[in-house]
């Protein structure tokens, strides 16, 4: 898969960041891009949302269960927090990819009109993790309380790295051998102080 194929998926995902999600408006989601980039504030998303987004973008390894409880106690529903995690983590992924290719950051997408659906997934429950999930919590299910976020994350994961089914293939090659890809992944995790 070449960069043009990756770009096609990233183009779609980037554009959708400007559309209303399940819990945030398009303008609020765009503000999360600015927070992830440490850019100047344009929209007042409220301190709890800003606090959560800043933590996810800039010091996620320090987030604790108490911190997530605190954000919730200040009015950020768990599902809304899940959307914040999804949007911010994708922005960081895409910005990293662009920088790796020697390109500048993408322009902020245009906000689209519309209100959040606020739809709740009845099957999502708190289990071992800090957010509700459909089934046991793990990397593939962590965002399943907000299906659009889980879907976007899975699509981006598949194009940047491997799809979840492809991960079982230890001989997979995409420009790098599987072991070379894992070396990159491991070093990124180490630098992020993440045990994953």
């Amino acid at each position, binding site marked *: 898969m070449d960069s043009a194929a990756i770009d096609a998926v990233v183009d779609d995902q980037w554009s959708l960041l400007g559309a209303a999600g399940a819990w945030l408006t398009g303008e609020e989601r765009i503000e999360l891009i600015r927070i992830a980039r440490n850019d100047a504030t344009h929209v007042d998303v409220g301190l709890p949302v800003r606090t959560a987004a800043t933590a996810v973008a800039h010091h996620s390894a320090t*987030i604790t269960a108490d911190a997530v409880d605190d954000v919730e106690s200040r009015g950020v529903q768990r599902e809304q927090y899940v959307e914040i995690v999804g949007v911010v983590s994708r922005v*960081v992924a895409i910005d990293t990819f662009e920088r790796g290719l020697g390109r500048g950051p993408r322009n902020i997408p245009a906000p689209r009109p519309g209100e959040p659906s606020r739809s709740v997934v009845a099957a999502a429950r708190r289990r071992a993790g800090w957010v509700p999930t459909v089934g046991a919590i793990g990397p593939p299910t962590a965002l399943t309380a907000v299906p659009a976020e889980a879907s976007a*994350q899975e699509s981006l994961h598949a194009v940047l790295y491997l799809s979840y089914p492809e991960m079982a293939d230890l001989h997979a090659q995409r*420009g790098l051998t599987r072991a*070379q890809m*894992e070396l990159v992944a*491991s070093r990124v995790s180490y630098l992020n102080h993440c045990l*994953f």
Partner: protein
Amino acid sequence: MLRASAHATGESIALRAITDRAVAPLLTAGDELLAFVDALLSHHDDLGAASAALTEVAGPDAVVRAAAVAGNFQMMNRLVDATGVPIGASLRAIAGDLGLG
């Protein structure tokens, strides 16, 4: 996954290289990949030079894939840390081997 994939393909890998840049990773283009990741995430080092060095030993597709995989794990690290995904026993054991955790 690193240890398993290297074992499956018969490649050599020194896991300590992940946490100690003085250790040679042994993997083909391993040094260049690690230097590229360090430059990419630090925002300070010379990313252009690291990219050129990786291209020299592994070709331009390697740079595209290294940037993509790095981006993916920037996402996944944040996702698991922010949602409280439990770390399994096997990962804890590996982290212990590497002096982490």
